[in-house]
C-alpha cells in the first residue's frame, strides 16, 4: 500500500486551483494575425508541421529522391515566410459545411419549386438548347478546376494554404455536381432534352476547345501554386465570370428561365471568397521582403501564359451570346467587364494584363 493518491484536486474544472499556467488558456505557439487569434487560426495554424515549425527530427519518411512530405520547391514561387498566410474567409470545417449545405438547400429548393410550377416547360426553345449544350459543357470546366485544386491541396507548404485550396476544390466540385443534377432534373420535364450533349460539346465543339485547353493546362501544371493562381486570378475573371455572370445570369430571365440564375449565383459568391484568399496569398508573395521581384516575374509569366489561353477560350465562347432569342447583353460588353475585372485584380498584385 505504498502508492497512495494524495491531495488530488477534487474538481477538474478551470479555476479550481491556482498554480503556474493554470490560466494559460490560449494556444501560445503561433503569432495571431491580429491581437487575438481567430477560431480559424486556432484550429488551423501549424497542424501541418515542417522542419521550421517544429520538426525537431526533420521529416522522418522521405520520397526516393530524399524529399520529405512537404517541401518548398513544389512551386517556383519563393517566400521568406510561408507561414504568414491566413485565409480571409476563415474557413474551417463547421463554417464550410454550414455554407455548403445552405447552398445545396437553396439550389434544391429553387429547382423543386421551379419544376413544381412547370417552369422548365416555358423556357424559350433556343434557351433550352443553350442550357443543354453550353451549360452542359461548362459543368466539365468547373469539374476540371475542382480536381485540379484537389491535386494542389497536397502540395502547399502550410496548413493554411492547403486548407484554402481544399475548400476551393470542394466548392468547385459541388458546383459541377449541382449543374449536373440541375440539368438532369429539368431534362426530365423537357421533351427531347439530351443530357449527353454537354459532354459532347465539351469534347468536340470547336467553340469549347479553347476552354478545355485552358482548363487542361491548369490541371496539367505540376506547380500547385500556379494551379491556384491560374484558376482564381486568370481563368475565373476572364472565362468563369464571363460565362456565368456575363451570360447565364443576365440572359436567362429574359428567355423565361428564372431557375438557372439562382443555381449559378452561389458560384459567384464562392468565387468572391476564393479570390480574396488567393489575392491575399499572392499579395504576400509579391511584397515579400526578399523574393518580391522573383515572384512578380514568375507571376507575370503565369499571367501571360494563362491569359493567352483564357482569351482564346473566351473568344471561342463568343458565338453563344448571339444564340438566345432575347439578347439583353452583348458579348463585347460582358468581355469588357471581365477585362476590367482582371485588370483590377492584377493591379492589386502589381501585375499587368498582356495586350492581345
Amino acid at each position, binding site marked *: *500500500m*505504498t*502508492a*497512495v493518491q494524495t*491531495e*488530488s*484536486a477534487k*474538481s*477538474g*474544472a*478551470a479555476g*479550481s*486551483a491556482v*498554480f*503556474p*499556467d*493554470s490560466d*494559460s*488558456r*490560449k*494556444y*501560445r*505557439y503561433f503569432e495571431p494575425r491580429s491581437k487575438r487569434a481567430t477560431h480559424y487560426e*486556432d*484550429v488551423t495554424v501549424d*497542424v*501541418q508541421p515542417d522542419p521550421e515549425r*517544429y520538426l525537431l*527530427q*526533420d521529416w*522522418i*519518411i*522521405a*520520397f*526516393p529522391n*530524399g524529399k*520529405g512530405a512537404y517541401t518548398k520547391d513544389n512551386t517556383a514561387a519563393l517566400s521568406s515566410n510561408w507561414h504568414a498566410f491566413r485565409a480571409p474567409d476563415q474557413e*474551417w*470545417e463547421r463554417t*464550410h*459545411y454550414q455554407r*455548403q449545405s445552405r447552398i*445545396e438547400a437553396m*439550389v434544391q429548393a429553387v429547382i423543386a419549386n421551379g419544376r413544381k410550377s412547370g417552369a422548365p416547360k416555358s423556357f424559350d426553345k433556343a434557351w433550352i438548347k443553350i442550357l443543354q449544350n453550353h451549360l452542359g459543357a461548362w459543368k466539365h470546366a468547373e469539374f476540371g478546376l475542382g*480536381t485540379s485544386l484537389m491535386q494542389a*491541396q*497536397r502540395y502547399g507548404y502550410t496548413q493554411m494554404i492547403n486548407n484554402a485550396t*481544399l475548400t476551393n476544390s470542394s466548392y468547385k*466540385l*459541388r458546383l459541377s*455536381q449541382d449543374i*449536373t*443534377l440541375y440539368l*438532369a*432534373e429539368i431534362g*426530365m420535364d423537357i421533351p427531347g432534352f439530351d443530357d449527353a450533349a454537354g459532354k459532347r460539346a465539351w469534347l468536340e465543339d470547336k467553340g469549347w476547345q479553347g476552354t478545355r485547353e485552358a482548363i*487542361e*493546362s491548369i*490541371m496539367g501544371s*505540376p506547380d500547385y501554386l500556379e494551379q491556384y493562381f491560374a484558376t482564381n486570378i486568370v481563368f475565373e475573371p476572364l472565362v468563369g465570370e464571363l460565362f456565368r455572370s456575363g451570360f447565364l445570369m443576365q440572359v436567362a430571365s429574359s428567355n423565361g428561365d428564372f431557375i438557372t440564375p439562382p443555381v449559378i449565383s452561389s458560384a459567384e459568391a464562392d468565387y468572391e471568397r476564393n479570390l480574396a484568399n488567393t489575392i491575399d496569398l499572392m499579395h504576400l508573395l509579391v511584397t515579400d521582403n526578399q523574393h518580391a521581384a522573383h515572384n512578380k516575374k514568375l507571376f507575370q509569366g503565369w499571367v501571360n501564359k494563362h491569359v493567352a489561353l483564357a482569351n482564346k477560350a473566351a473568344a471561342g465562347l463568343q458565338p453563344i451570346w448571339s444564340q438566345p432569342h432575347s439578347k439583353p447583353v452583348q458579348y463585347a460588353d460582358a468581355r469588357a467587364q471581365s477585362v476590367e475585372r482582371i485588370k483590377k485584380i492584377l493591379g492589386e498584385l502589381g501585375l499587368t494584363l498582356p495586350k492581345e
Partner: protein
Amino acid sequence: MSGTLTLNKITAQRGISVGEAAKKIADLGWNPSYVQEAMTFPTDYKITKAPKDPMKQVLRSYFPMQEEKDNRVYGALDAALRGDMFRNVEPRWVEWMKLFLAIIPFPEISAARSMAMVGRLAPGEDLRTGFTMQMVDEFRHSTIQMNLKKWYMENYIDPAGFDITEEAFGKCYATTIGRQFGEGFITGDAITSANVYLTVVAETAFTNTLFVAMPSEAARNGDYALPTVFLSVQSDESRHIGNGHSMLMSMLKEPENHLLLERDMRYAFWQNHAIVDAAIGTFIEYGTTNRDKNKESYAEMWHRWIFEDYYRTYMLPLEKYGIKIHHDDVQTAWKRLTEKHYVHKVAQFFAVGWSANFWRIEAQTDKDFEWFEHKYPGWYAQFGEFWKWYEKLSHRGQTNILFNSDVGYVYPHRCWSCLVPCLIREDIVTDEIDGKLHTFAHELDRWTAVEAFAGEYQGRPTPAMGRFSGRREWESVYHNVDIADAIKDLGFVRTDGKTLVAQPHLRFDQKEMWTLDDVRGHILKSPLQTLREMSPADREKHLAEYRKGFTINPCN
C-alpha cells in the same frame, strides 16, 4: 398503408435516382488531350481497371448530412459545459488527451492530402466523389479535433500542454510515433501510403480502437466531449473503408501488384499494430481510473476487432485473390499484446520519461494493480514495484526516475522502424542501412526498414518506394545534453520560465510542481550513438545483456 400516401408524395415530382445521379456525376471526367496531367505521385503499382463506387453518393446529400452531424457535436459540447462536466472529469484521463490530441489532427489532415494521390491514380472518375467526401471529411476531423483540444484547454484545470500542442507534436519523444503514422499516409509510394497503409489497414482495421474504444473509456472517466466528437468522426469511416476497398479490388486485378500488396499489407499491419496499439493501448489502460473487471481490456477488444473482424473477415479473404497473408504476424502481434505485455512496457517507458513530456502522468495505485493482474496475469510481478517507485519518486527532491539507478529500469533502444523503443527486450535485432548500424524492436521492423523501404524488393525494382529518413532516433538529438537544457529547448516549460509542463503526479499545487532546478544535473544519452561507438565485441555483449532484460528493485 394509405396513411403514408401523403399530399407531399402525390405532388412530388419525378426525381433522378441516386444511382443515376452518381452515374452522371462520374461522367464529369474526361481524358485530357491538350495537356496531360503531370504524374506527380510516384507508385510502383499498376492500376488499369477503374475502381467502382459501391456507395453511390453525391455531394448534394453529403453536405447537409455532415452539417447535421456537426450540429449534434457542438450541441453536445455546449450541453457538457452546462452540465459542469469538468467538475467530475478524471484529470488522469484528460492529461493523456494532451498527448493524444497533439498527435491526431496531423494524421487526419494527411489523410485529406492523400486523397489527391488516390484521386489522380485511380483511372476513371467513379470514385472521385468518394475521394472528395473523404478529403472534406478529413479536413473536418482535423479541425473538429483542434476545436475539441481548444475546448479542453479553456475548461480543464491545467491547460499547460494543451497550450503548446502543435509545437509539442513536432518535438516530443512520444509524438514522434504519431509523426511516423501521419507521414506514412503521404510519403513514398502513393499506393503504399494513401491506400494500403492509410485505408486498407489504418482505417479499416484500427479506427475502431481509436474512435470507438477511446470514447467508451472517456465516458467512464466523466469525459462526454471526446465521445461526441470521435463517434461522429468514426461515422465517416465506413465510407473511407469503402473507398479503400474499391481501390484494393482494382489493384488486385493486376497480378504484378500482388507481390507489392503482400509487402505493403505486411508492413502496414505490423506498423499499425506497433504504433496504434502502443498509443491507444496506453491511453485506454493507463489513462483510466475505471477498474471495472467486467469491461473488456484493450487486448480483449483487439481480439474482437483486429483478430476476429479484420483478420478473419477482411485479410483472410484476400488469399483467394492470390495475396499471401502472413498469418504468423497477426499471431505475433497478439502475443506481444498478451504474453509480452507490449502496452504495459510502453506505458512504463512514457512514465520513465515523464520529465521530457508535456502532460502529467500519475502513478498507478493498488486499485489499478488488481485490475491489471486480473486482465493480464503476471502483470504485478513485472510492473508492480515499478509503479510503487514511480509514486515514491513523484515528489520533488527525489531523483528523477529517468536517472535514478535505485529503480533498476534500463532505458531502451529506439526502433528505427516504428519509433517505439525496443521494449520487448529479447526481440531486439540490429542491421545496417547504408553502412550505418540501427536497432529494431522486432525482426519485422528490421524487415520493414531494410527490405520493404528500399529501391528493390525481392529482385523487383521499386523506384517509387519511400525511405526512412531524418533524425529518427529522438534521443540522438539530445545526446550528451543536460535534461534541463533539453526540456527548455523543447519548450516544455511553463511561462514562469522554470516550472515543468509535465509532472509525475496530479497534485495541482505549486509547491508540488517540479521545476528545471529539480531535474538539472543529469545528462541524456543516445543509446544508438553509444552502441555505435562500442567495439564489435562490446556491442555483442551489450546486446546479449539487453536481451536478458532487467529487474526492477523492490521499492520500500
